[in-house]
Structure formats: C-alpha cells, structure tokens
C-alpha cells in the first residue's frame, strides 16, 4: 500500500474515469495528489475491474470498456498516491476527509477536494423488487466485469435506457440466454426526443448504438410499451407479470429479473458536505450545482463526472481534467490564463462527448407509472416503507422527504436513501401536485457510508474534550 502523506494538496474521491483523469493531470503538473477509492482496483463502475477482469475476450465487454485501460496506465505513471479499499464517509467544511480502510478509520486533510463519485442506478420500485433474484442491471454488469458471472435459468430484463441494451448485448456475447426484454420506454417519449435526434445523429454514439440495438433485437424477444410490471414468487422471483399499454396481464417465468431505469448522480457525499443542489427536470433527478469547472457552492470542493449530472464515461474523463486544471489554479500552481488556455482542448472534447445526450435523456425518461409507484409497492427497502405510507403521511400534512424520514423512518437505513430517495421525492411531489423541486431532498449526514463502532473508536481523540451538557 501507498504510504500516505500527512496532508495533500488535492484529494480525489473515486477512481472512475473522472477521478483517474483528474488525479493524473493534477499530479503530473505538480500537486501532491491522492486518489481514494472504495474498490480494490481502479476503473470505477464503468471500467470496473479493468486491470483484473477475468473476461479476457475483448468482444464480450466491448471496445468502449477496454478504453478504461488507457486511463489507468498514465495514472500509474503520474506520481499520484493511490489508496484502494478506502471508504470515504465524511468530508468536513475544513476539508478533513474521514475514511476507513482495513478496519481502521482516519482523518486525512486536503487543501482541495474533487468528488468523482459517479452515478448509481435510479431506483426502480415495482411490486416484488425486493425478492431475491431481482437486481439492477448495473449490479449484474458488475458481476460480469469482476467475476465473469452471468445469470442462468430464465432471464428477463425490464426497463429503459442505454445500459439495459448494453448489458443485454454483453450478456449475449458472453453466451447468456435472455428470455425477453420488457421495454418500459413510454411511447410519447419519442415525440419529445425526435427534435433532438439530429444532434444525436452527429454524435459518436449513434452508429455503435444502432448496431448494438439491432444485434440484441435480432436475438431477443423485445416487448415494447410495457406499462405495468411486477415480480412474483415464493421466497424468490419465479414470475414476471407485465402489461403492454392497456392490454391484459401477461406472465413470464423468470429466475432472474434485471431492472434498469437509467442512472442518476450519486449525490450522497456532496449533499452531506452541504453542496447546493437543484432539480434537473431533463434528467429527472437532483444534481449538485456546479460551474463550468465543476466547482460547487462549498469552497474547495469540486465535482467531476456523472456525480455532477449524467454525461457518460467520456464526458466524465474530460470533466475530470477541467476540475483538475481549476484545482491547480485555485491552489496557486497556475494562473487563470494558463488554466483557460490548457482547458480549451478538454472543453472541445467535452462538448463532443456530450453531443446527443439531450436525445437520450428525453427518450429514456421513465414513465410516471414507474417513477410514482402504486400504494402497495415498497419504496424504502431498509425500513420497509410503502408508497402508500408515504402518501398517508402527505395527507397528514407532511410536506417533504425530511419529514417523511422523521415520521416513517424511510431513508434512515444503512443505504442513506440511495435506494428510496428519488422515489420518495416523486411520490410526495405527485401526491402534493407540485414539482420535486419544491419538495426537496433528504438532508444527508455523514457517515455517508456505514462505519463500525470499532473504526470510529480508533480515530485520534479531539484535543479539546468538550464538557458534557446534560443528556436528554
């Protein structure tokens, strides 16, 4: 393991494309830099296990995946310190980073922090989604990348979004059988997306995307316009029940149901730090407020990559470099003119990488019937709170997710709202007839990752032990 310095100019949190690119650039240009990452190896989720995947045949995961290796080499040569297996659970306003590794916690101070915490799958709450055998497409993809594992038996995929199709393609390449893809993309999305098609057509994705889509459609039965979905089974999923449009219920046998409704920024750490955030109507999620350099409302804290709004892996890489240049400038290593000049090619590349994103956002926006689940659907898995309970709380006068949290405990479990927050917001907004912007989001608190009492007790003690006030 790397011997850590007592303090760094720059700490980058997350070793996906944004974090790798940011740390590489900053370290090469002289900042003492540390890259902290929860995983055992670099790559983030998109390039997960890029240095150690057992899936060696490049045609399975695709060339876009293997591009990740182009980021890891330069990072290794950059002079940045690298701390894998490190869970960051807090960043204070004074930029002291709380992290746990190998069962011990420590506080690491930095002068500047770049969050590159990426994206997570939008929670897709349907009846039965908590049954064993039901999982996110993203999770299934991680298993494939890290261990070469694919689901066996009857496999059904359901949802909407590029990742669903990519996983289907990778699954087929890896020799898996997929019984059906239940496409939940609402028909009316096409109307909204069509005007944005020309820009998408000029993007680099269109050719690859179409090829992939056609290959999947040739080999798998795709059922479109799915308007209702649930998983049923005794102890684990056995049947997927769905409806097409206003049609009758149909049933499919399933041992595995892979759900996907796009990805949203993982905002937990930024939110817990206190970074201002806004509702993004196009991507239908909360996004931290950042300027063109990734700088947040909190001094010394920047965000690079999908954590500041979904832009995809290539955009993340370029955004990483831009935030690193701004960090160099803010720390006094380069002047403003140098920053702006050196940023120009990355900005151009970023614009190219973002081309066509609007089209994807519009096309793959989840339908209301899935964003706002029916009463009996569990929305908070940790505390087993249903959408109906949230609606009842709204009827009593509860107006936002922080009150439902205090009232129903939803969002209070170990996941800190990652699995329920977006759905709870949608349910409350729908019940009140207002925009999620008005409803707000959970105020999250450190530790944003669970830590053990033993880890916490291992922290160095405060110098000034404060006299106790009387307890409650």
């Amino acid at each position: 393991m790397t011997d850590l310095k007592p303090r760094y100019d720059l700490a980058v949190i997350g070793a996906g494309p944004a974090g790798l690119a940011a740390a590489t650039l900053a370290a090469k240009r002289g900042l003492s830099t540390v890259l902290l990452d929860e995983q055992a190896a670099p790559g983030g989720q998109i390039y997960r296990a890029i240095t150690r995947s057992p899936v060696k045949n490049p045609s399975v995961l695709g060339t876009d995946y293997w591009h990740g290796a182009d980021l890891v080499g330069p990072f290794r040569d950059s002079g940045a310190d690298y701390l894998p297996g490190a869970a960051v659970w807090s960043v204070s306003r004074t930029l002291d980073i709380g992290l746990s590794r190998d069962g011990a916690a420590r506080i690491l101070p930095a002068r500047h922090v770049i969050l590159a915490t990426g994206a997570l799958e939008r929670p897709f709450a349907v009846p039965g989604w908590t049954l064993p055998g039901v999982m996110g497409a993203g999770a299934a993809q991680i298993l494939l990348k890290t261990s070469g594992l694919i689901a066996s038996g009857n496999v059904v995929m359901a949802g909407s979004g590029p990742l669903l199709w990519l996983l289907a393609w990778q699954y087929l390449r890896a020799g898996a059988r997929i019984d059906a893809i239940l496409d939940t993309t609402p028909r009316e999305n096409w109307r909204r997306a069509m005007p944005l098609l020309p820009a998408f057509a000029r993007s680099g994705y269109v050719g690859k995307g179409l090829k992939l889509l056609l290959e999947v459609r040739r080999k798998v039965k795709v059922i479109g316009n799915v308007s209702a979905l649930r998983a049923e089974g005794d102890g684990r999923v056995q049947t997927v029940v769905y409806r097409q449009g206003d049609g009758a219920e149909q049933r499919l046998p399933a041992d595995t149901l892979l759900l996907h409704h796009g990805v949203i920024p993982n905002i937990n750490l930024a939110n817990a730090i206190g970074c201002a955030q806004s509702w993004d109507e196009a991507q239908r999620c909360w996004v931290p407020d950042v300027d063109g350099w990734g700088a947040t409302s909190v001094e010394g804290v920047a965000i690079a990559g999908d954590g500041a709004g979904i832009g995809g892996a290539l955009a993340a890489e370029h955004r990483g470099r831009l935030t690193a240049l701004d960090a160099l400038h803010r720390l006094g290593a380069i002047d403003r003119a140098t920053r702006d000049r050196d940023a120009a090619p990355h900005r151009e590349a970023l614009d190219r990488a973002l081309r066509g994103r609007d089209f994807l956002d519009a096309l793959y926006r989840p339908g209301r019937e899935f964003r706002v689940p029916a009463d009996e659907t569990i929305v908070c898995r940790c505390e087993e709170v249903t959408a109906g309970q949230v609606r009842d709380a709204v009827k009593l006068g509860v107006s936002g997710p922080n009150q439902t949290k205090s009232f129903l405990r939803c969002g209070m479990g170990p996941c800190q709202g990652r699995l329920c927050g977006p759905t709870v917001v949608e349910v409350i907004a729908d019940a009140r007839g207002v925009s999620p912007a008005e409803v707000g989001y959970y105020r999250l608190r450190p530790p944003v990752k669970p830590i053990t009492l033993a880890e916490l007790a291992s922290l160095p003690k405060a110098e000034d032990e404060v006299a106790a006030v009387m307890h409650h």
Partner: protein
Amino acid sequence: MAEPDVIIVGGGLHGCSTALHLALRGVRALVLEKDHIGRHASGVNAGGVRQLGRRAAEVPLSVASMALWHGIRDLVDDDCGFESHGQLKVAETEAELESCRERAAQLTALGFTHEEVVDQAELRRLVPSIAEHCLGALVSRRDGAAIPYRTTFAFKRKAESLGARFHEGAAVARVARSGRNWRVETADGVAHEAPVLVNCAGAWADRLAAQLGEPVPLEVIAPMLMITARVPPFLKPVVGATGRTLSFKQFPNGTVLIGGGLLGRAYRDENRTDLDFAKVTTNARTVWDLFPIMRSATIVRAWAGIEARMPDDIPVIGPSGTEEGVFHAFGFSAHGFQLGPIVGRITADLITRGASDLPVDAFRIQRFRHTAAAA
C-alpha cells in the same frame, strides 16, 4: 379569517404544546414557524423522556410532565412512540456510586422519590449487557423515551383539530406594538395581530427577546447523535453514565442511538450543523467500554440539531420582564423534550390565569438582566 388570541413564534414541541393547551382552554393560537414543524431540536433530539438527574428547579416540572407522558395518548391521540422502561446512570467506580447515593438523598430531602440507587445485581438485571466493571446505578424507573418528530407532529395535529392554526415557512421579521395588540410581520410581508405573544423560538429566541428589550445570553449549540444498524434486542432502559457523557438506547426496531451532548458546530442562519468526528469518537469509546456487545456494531448515520443553551443550563419560562402580553418558553439547554407537555400547560396557565400551580420563579428571564447587559 379571525385574528388569533395568541401568536406563538416557533413550531417546535413547546410552541405546539402551548398551542394545544391554549386550544383546550378555548383560546385560539396562531403558530408561526420559519421552517416546518419540528424542524430543529424538537424533531431531531434523542427522544429521552427523563426525570433522572434534573436540576433542582426543574424537578417539580419534570415530575408533573411525566404524569402527562404516561397519559400521552389521552392528550394528543397518539402514543408518540413513548415507552417507559426507565432511565439509569451507571456508576463505574465506588466514588461514582457514592455520588449517586448523595444525589438520591438530596432529592429525598426535597420530597421526591423517583430516583433510587441500585446495586450491581439489580443493574445487571435491568441491563444484562452492561460491562462487568460497573458497580451500580442511579435509576428513575418511570422514565423512558419517545419519538421526537412524531411527538411534535402529534401535538401540532391535536392543536390544529381544536382550532389552532399553523403557518410554516413564516419567519418572523419584526414585532411591534399596535394599540393593545402585538403586530407580528413575517419575512414575506404578512402581518398578524394578537394581544398576546409567546416566544418559543428555541435557538433563535434571543433575537425576539432582544427586539422586546430584554437580551439574553443564549448559546447556539449542536449536540451530536449517531445511530447504528439494527442489532438483536438487548436493552430496554435508556442508559447514561455518571462519570462520562453518554445517552444510549435501543429502539424497538433494533437500532441503537448513541448521544450524550458532545457538540458539533451550529450555523443557525444557514440551518446547518457540522459534525466533529474527533469528538464523536469519544462517544464511540464510551460505548466500547460499557457495552462490549456493541463492538461490532455499524454506525449508519450521525447528526446534530440546533438547540439553545442558557448559561445556567435551565430554560427561560414565564412573562416578559419588559413588555405586557409577552411570554417566553425557550433555552431548554438540550433537555427540553420531556418538559414539552407540561411547559405548554404552564404557559397556557400563565396566559389565561396569570399564574401556574408549579414553581416557575427560577426560570424568569429577569435573571439575565445583568449578565446580558454585560455580555
């Protein structure tokens, strides 16, 4: 809509309780809350319902409030998650045990019998998981814990059902005399009038007091709390320590709350608190020492509310020292939750009858007349 009889500033537990007790007497209150009901200390505190260890001045109020807690459903139509399995303070040394005995004797001399000293065997019966070195404890058996936000919300809803009104998102910008009324303007330009004004503004109450010409030395604090993932049930009472700072309890769902008054940083103008993990670690060590069963537990969340602390650690309750028709109830110094039910009644009594049958002189705001002027 008819103008209210009383305007209450602050929709925490004390404001909601005052509104409820006024409503029970047929007095119409309007509660102005700058955020939402129970947003700060009332909604996020540890939920301890404790007579144990209170300062002498608070004991009669605390005992009277406990009677209300044991009938809380009758008062607010909701059990507020209240459970009574006692609270105790563990003694780890002979000297600490002796101080527990002295404390119990002092209370007995004042005529109160709710605190008793128990030996090691009884401590172990009450808390089987306590570390072996603990020698005994001071116990208050009728104490317990409740769910703070649910409690505050229940008081609000009951008050509302009896005619009280609540305006959330209504920050008070200015108060001024208007004939025999108080005129209260909110930040969004709305004005309300009533002959009586009640200051239940918690950590912001000093600003209202200053407008009324009676500044107080209120300190804004942020006591930190943390909670674990669920563990199998092992603890019923709320446990504190005699020699160090701790408040420790397990909820019915298995999660364990760890607190004890260690302070983070409060920024009241931003509604924000920062945690200080270097201090949280002190709590973690205490738990490590006292509850070996907890050593593998996982902390899933930590937080700090914004509270008001007075220099003498007891609240301000009672009429203004400078203005007619103004009453205060604030500054509960991080132990006001249990007092909520009774302080609303006291304030309602002071407003409607001009007196309370409980001794409240110690809480007069005039006690700060000189300290605040010097500050």
